[in-house]
């Protein structure tokens, strides 16, 4: 089955990104496909490569990048929401790309199920 994922909150402040990540990982382990993870609202902050958590904490951004690399995930950051919050190509972590909101609607159409993780 193909899942589409929407992440509406930034890393650390809310559990949304953690929950979405653990859901994606479990889905992939079960042989499902993740059509796309779309980052919206403060969720765009999950893509900042300038993120540096303390060493004893999980690195939410790197974790997404790694999952994207291992499973060829499409991690899309909403351009309008990103520009509002100072996320641009130059501070984008590996595996993420900036694109339009149409990508979210497209995921809704193409995925079998679309799940929202937010506040």
């Amino acid at each position, binding site marked *: 089955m193909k899942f589409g994922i929407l992440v509406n909150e930034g890393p650390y402040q809310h559990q949304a990104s953690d929950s979405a990540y653990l859901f994606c990982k479990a889905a992939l382990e079960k042989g499902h496909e993740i059509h796309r993870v779309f980052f919206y609202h403060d969720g765009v902050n999950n893509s900042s490569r300038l993120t540096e958590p303390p060493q004893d904490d999980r690195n939410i951004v790197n974790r997404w990048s790694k999952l994207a690399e291992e499973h060829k995930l499409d991690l899309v950051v909403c351009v309008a929401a990103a520009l509002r919050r100072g996320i641009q190509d130059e501070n984008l972590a590996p595996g993420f790309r900036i694109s339009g909101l149409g990508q979210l609607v497209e995921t809704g159409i193409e995925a079998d*199920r679309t799940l929202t993780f937010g506040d």
Partner: protein
Amino acid sequence: MLHIINKSPQERNSLESCLRVAQDGGTLLLIEDAVYAATRGNAAAAKLREAQSRFKVCVLQADLEARGMADHLIDGVTTVDYGGFVDLAAQHKNCQSWL
């Protein structure tokens, strides 16, 4: 439908709102801070009983454990891991997060 709730019933009205509007049947999954709704002695216990009479009620085990509340889980609530969460999403025709 799979209804996903992620807020404590003492903080937000998402559980209440879901119970007010949602059609009977399907599953209600409590994740993140919503797991407190499924714990003994919580003031929202009546709401949870109502939920159990109308939906299958599940709680994400990892969130329950993280909060030290696994020993307070109300009888009749099914615990699931993230794989179980994925199964629930796949089994239901559609899903809604009550944000």
